[in-house]
């Protein structure tokens, strides 16, 4: 079921078009990687989803219903710029944020205690937020986002500033939430983490959607039948322009871009004739490469 549906939304600030005819869809129990360079319009889009600002045109629907303020209680939002009341006790702050989402004080407290345990911070419950380290505050912010069990969770750079252990912890929780049926919109610059946990991605640049779909499909689309080869012997065929358009020797292996009309299969055949092949693979482009390719040279 579609939890979030964005249809052709646009937003202008003066002469600048921040978001241009953007459409996307987040399903129940999925994680959508919302990617894009700085200033691409990610935050503006998220703010429109949160009804903090209104789109100039287009429509946003949540849980199959047209946008209205009552629906926001079922959304959890962790902005990129963290915001916590530093002079409040951790537990009071969590209860406050949950109450703002319509939870009663007692269940809010119960959930807060449970989440503090899950995030390995139970002993910090009665401490003031300002006494916590930055990473701990980050985890508190995450707890505040998911405490009220929102059907849609929007995370803007949730891992920034976290050490690898805590990154793993949060990533596991995200996957857990996904399995429970929560939909997650995961906005990030970190392509490797997006690659690991997202089945679908949406890449935007200058307010426009430039890539959208299941990650595997996008990778196939960008898989320019490059070949990685590790071998013993002298590979004289690499100089044959009729077969090899370009190659990069990385020491451990050679990355080959076949000439036009030559398949990876044909490269392998030539290699096997000359060399003892140890390893052969059709190189899948990393999300990082795709990102750079799409954003740097459109």
């Amino acid at each position: 079921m579609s939890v979030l549906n964005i249809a052709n939304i646009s937003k202008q600030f003066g002469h600048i078009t921040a978001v241009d005819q953007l459409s996307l869809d987040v399903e129940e129990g999925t994680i959508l990687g919302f990617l894009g360079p700085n200033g691409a319009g990610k935050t503006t889009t998220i703010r429109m989803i949160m009804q903090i600002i209104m789109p100039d045109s287009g429509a946003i629907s949540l849980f199959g219903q047209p946008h209205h303020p009552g629906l926001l209680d079922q959304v959890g939002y962790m902005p990129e710029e963290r915001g916590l009341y530093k002079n409040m006790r951790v537990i009071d702050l969590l209860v406050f944020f949950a109450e703002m989402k319509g939870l009663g004080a007692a269940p809010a407290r119960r959930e807060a205690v449970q989440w503090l345990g899950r995030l390995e911070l139970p002993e910090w419950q009665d401490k003031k937020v300002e006494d916590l380290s930055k990473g701990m505050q980050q985890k508190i912010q995450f707890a505040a986002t998911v405490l009220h069990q929102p059907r849609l969770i929007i995370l803007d750079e949730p891992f920034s500033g976290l050490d690898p252990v805590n990154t793993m912890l949060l990533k596991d929780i995200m996957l857990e939430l996904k399995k429970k049926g929560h939909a997650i919109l995961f906005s990030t610059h970190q392509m490797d983490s997006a690659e690991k946990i997202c089945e679908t991605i949406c890449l935007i640049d200058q307010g426009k959607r430039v890539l959208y779909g299941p990650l595997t499909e996008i990778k196939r689309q960008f898989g320019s039948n490059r070949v990685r080869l590790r071998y013993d012997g002298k590979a004289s065929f690499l100089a044959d322009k009729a077969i090899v358009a370009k190659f990069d020797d990385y020491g451990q292996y050679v990355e080959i871009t076949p000439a036009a009309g030559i398949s990876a299969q044909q490269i392998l055949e030539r290699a096997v004739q000359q060399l003892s092949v140890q390893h052969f693979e059709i190189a899948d482009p990393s999300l990082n490469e795709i990102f750079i390719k799409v954003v740097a040279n459109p």
Partner: protein
Amino acid sequence: MRKIWTLIKREYVTRIHTKGFLWGTLLMPVFILLVTFFPLLLGEFTGDDVKNIAIIDRSGALAAPLHEAMQNDGEGKEATRYHLHIHTPDAAAWTETVQLLDNQVKDKKLDAYLIIPEDIFESNQFELHCSTVSNLLFNRRIENAVTQVATTTRLQRSGLDAELVKKFSARINAKTYKVGEQGSREESGFASYAVNYIFMFLLYIALILYGTFVMQGVTEDKSSRVMEILLSSANARQIMAGKILGIGAVGLTQFFIWMLFAALASMYGLAMVQAIDPGISKIAMPTISIWVYVLFLVYFILGFFLYATLYAAVGSMVNSDREAQSLQWPVVMLILFAMLCAFPVLQNPSGTFAIVISLLPFFTPILMFLRFTANAATTVELLASILIMILTTWGLIWVTAKIFRVGILMYGKKPTLQELLKWMKYS
């Protein structure tokens, strides 16, 4: 509504628990007591302060009566306050005497010396030498005494009987009565004035203080980026309402505590002071009508809302308290202007100027309240001022909420006036 309530609750609880609240609540009554009783205490202390004054009388006619006048001023207080030493140097010893007196003033053995010239009745001038010439009250007292004595002497010289002159030139004192709801009652003019002034001052402090709290609260939420989280759960209007109502509730709490102090002080204050110094019983303590408290509360609440909306808008436009300093000036000026108008208004509290300016909503809390305590505001004026304030605040919320909505999401430089107008169009 429930969200506004949650916001109010957080604002109230976190603020009540701060040390600042505790100290502010406790220190304010102490401060007020000091302001109220300081003049009294001052009077007590200066009573022991005897002034030594020397007189060189070249006219030969004034020294003795001056001595008599300053010793017997009717109330019998002056006798203990001034010690007069009369010098009558001849021409040869003149310079020497002045030198001596100068040295005595320098050594603080003498507070001042007077030189009364021979031609005082023509020149209308005498010399007053003292270490500080800026004590205007003291100068005026000496002047008055000399004038009085000179007048008496002049009259006597013109042939009037000394007793008659004394009778004619007797000082006439005013006994002050305040006309309130229960008719006229005797009351010290100064004490009643002091009470009015204290209440007005309290209003002034409260409006600025709590307004600033609202502004800082908004700026804090903005710079700590909590605002964005709040906005994901509530709209800008709810956030603004929660902030203003929460801080307003803190203000009211503090006020009820202060009012309790004030009520206790007005009930038992006199007894307490008398216990310390029985001689003080002569002062007629001003009685504070219940309506003063009621209107004080009404004008505090209305004034707070009016100014808090402005302060909230200012807070939303800036990113730090320092930036807020410059932008809040127009708002502070409004309150300050009301204070500046207090004296002209008090001089003629029923005049057209006073009526008109006290009906302007930004000045109403302070000036209409002041006119009420001076018994110059009619019921119609009071009700009209309250209505005008409510309508103005209502309209103002509509405008400031727009600025607030855009402002809380804007980071970076302070907006210009043009940008502000654009913000209002955006939302």
